[in-house]
């Protein structure tokens, strides 16, 4: 029998048909939808006179647009409110489960899926959001899609996709103190660039990933798209099974035993072949931060900003344009640079573990006066756990306050916008020009680095943690 990768096993089990000279018709187990990329798809269905094929395999939550304060009140921004209302109405019309603001299931779409046990090993999962790759942490084939494709899945529970190439990224060894899953991801993206993964699905392998919690694995898989890859996945193991077991939509009883037996087969065969392979050593990874306007422009926080020597043509111009936007000079240290805002949250780093790390670091310290900090839990469940674990009191003592769940300043569709020219150290996924507000400047980092920056009021390395 042909040796298969984990990705092959999951993908091939969902191919309904191979279109001659074309893509595969891929069956989708789980479809997550949100308010921004779904309304035009529902409109398309309506125009064609179609119903949603499998409402029971579809789950909705408004996250991109929502305010992170006073969620019990009506949304002030008319357009945002309209999108959220439209999602609710579409879900009601088609019988789709809708997790509205303030309800116990609400949160960022990629946070609530795993939390509720909707995300399981071996599934195919899509959502009209590029960070759907997050769910790959469970050994699922999960990827972001456009609105036309959302319409396809709503209409047929299938999607037409060419099968991507396969890449394996192996990282072995123990992480140094202060190095987190986010640093591994930023390190990998800096090595591959933002286009190095294009056309591929990544499998993350090696002892370093094995040692990560599910939260850490989700952070790594979440950022797969930032190297250009469609998605990334990690073979499920005891850590995965332990996380899924007992969750609301996880299989129960005999169904669990059956599922578990299948999930245990989900690993790459010994002699399976990848199109592209990379191997890195965990010992080389240090706390990372970005200095430019794409996630591939990352360095160890102790390093100087690179120079454009050796670049030419459009490469050089693009690099210089990026530094000019950021207000940085070639070759200067990033340590000590000003920080105006700190944002903890998003589908990348809005889980309980991220809040624990941040809180642990700021415990007994004081937030710098020059920093505005936004701490936004990824979901109502995360917010609840933060309160139950007593983290809020510690945060408040240190000068921080907790907001309500949503995507928030990650993409600034809601009122949480970083003003023009200001610097934000952000635990999110993109530092594109204007991502966190028109002319805002973003430095991507881990929750631990963000905590250090919030305390020191400038770009700083975490110490004595």
């Amino acid at each position: 029998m042909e040796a298969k990768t984990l990705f092959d096993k999951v993908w091939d089990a969902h191919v309904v048909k191979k279109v001659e000279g074309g893509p595969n018709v891929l069956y989708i187990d789980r479809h997550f939808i949100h308010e921004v990329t779904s309304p035009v798809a529902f409109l398309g269905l309506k125009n064609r006179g179609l119903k949603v094929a499998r409402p029971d395999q579809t789950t909705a939550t408004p996250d991109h647009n929502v305010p992170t304060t006073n969620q019990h009140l009506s949304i002030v921004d008319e357009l945002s409110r309209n999108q959220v209302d439209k999602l609710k109405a579409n879900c009601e019309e088609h019988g789709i489960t809708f997790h509205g603001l303030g309800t116990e299931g609400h949160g960022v779409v990629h946070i609530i899926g795993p939390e509720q046990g909707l995300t399981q090993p071996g599934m195919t999962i899509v959502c009209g959001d590029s960070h759907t790759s997050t769910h790959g942490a469970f050994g699922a084939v999960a990827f972001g899609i456009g609105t036309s494709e959302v319409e396809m899945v709503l209409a047929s529970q299938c999607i037409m996709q060419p099968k991507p190439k396969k890449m394996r990224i192996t990282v072995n060894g123990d992480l140094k103190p202060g190095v987190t899953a986010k640093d591994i991801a930023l390190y990998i993206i800096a090595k591959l660039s933002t286009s190095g993964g294009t056309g591929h699905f990544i499998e993350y392998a090696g002892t370093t990933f094995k040692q990560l919690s599910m939260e850490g694995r989700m952070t790594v898989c979440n950022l797969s798209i930032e190297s250009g890859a469609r998605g990334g996945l990690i073979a499920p193991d005891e850590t995965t099974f332990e996380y899924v077991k007992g969750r609301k939509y996880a299989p129960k009883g005999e169904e669990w035993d059956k599922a578990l037996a299948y999930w245990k087969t989900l690993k790459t065969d010994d002699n399976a072949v990848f199109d592209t392979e990379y191997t890195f050593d965990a010992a080389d990874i240090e706390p990372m931060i970005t200095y430019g306007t794409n996630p591939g422009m990352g360095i160890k926080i102790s390093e100087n900003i690179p120079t454009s020597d050796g670049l030419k043509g459009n490469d050089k111009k693009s690099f210089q344009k990026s530094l000019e936007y950021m207000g940085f000079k070639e070759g200067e240290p990033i340590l000590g640079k000003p920080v105006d805002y700190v944002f903890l949250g998003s589908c990348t780093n809005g889980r309980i573990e991220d809040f624990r790390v941040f809180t642990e670091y700021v415990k007994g310290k004081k937030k710098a006066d020059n920093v505005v900090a936004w701490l936004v839990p990824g979901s109502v469940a995360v917010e609840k756990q933060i309160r139950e674990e007593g983290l809020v009191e510690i945060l408040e003592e240190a000068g921080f306050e907790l907001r309500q769940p949503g995507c928030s300043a990650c993409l600034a569709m809601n009122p949480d916008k970083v003003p023009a020219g200001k610097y934000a150290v952000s635990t999110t996924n993109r530092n594109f020009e204007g991502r966190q507000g028109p002319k805002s400047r973003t430095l991507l980092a881990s929750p631990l680095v963000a905590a250090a920056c919030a305390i020191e009021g400038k770009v700083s390395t975490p110490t004595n943690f």
Partner: protein
Amino acid sequence: MPIDKFVKITSPAVPLPIENVDTDQIIPARFLKAVERKGFGENLFRDWRYLDNNEPNPEFVMNKAEFSGSILVGGKNFGSGSSREHAAWAIYDAGFKVVVSSFFADIFKGNALNNGLLPVQVTPEFLDEIFETIDKNNKAEFTVDLENQTFTNNTSGNSFEFEINPYKKTCLLNGYDDIDYLVNMKDEIEAFEQNK
């Protein structure tokens, strides 16, 4: 929504020699709040195209009278980032039928094809030639022939044979979309579900 047919066009091109043009630059998130597919073209490249006072930025290529045409030429790794199909809609609604680059991000490429916007991937060398040709003559014309899969620089006469999935090519030539195809597969999909 069914797509417009694409067969062949000849047009000048609008150059955007910037690398890693991400979908947040193509259309910033704050302009994604519509619930219908309209008005996105006005906000294409919003933060580059307009000044802080919302007046057109005279420095941006789309605001320069000497540049026009239905072909947009971008630097490498065009369309990276978010999966927002609004990026493809904005480009199409602003009057472009073709985007040329030496490298496209996957999701953007799929979204473009699903909307009748043809992504043409050329070699870095050919991309440089296109930029140089436009630099010398901003009215220089290019011909995109989908049937023959060629992108021709009408000034130099050089032609590049680009790749496209045969299925997607048929869809574009005929204005078909994937949803029709999938809806017609209902029985096969239900049979698949039974056997899962």
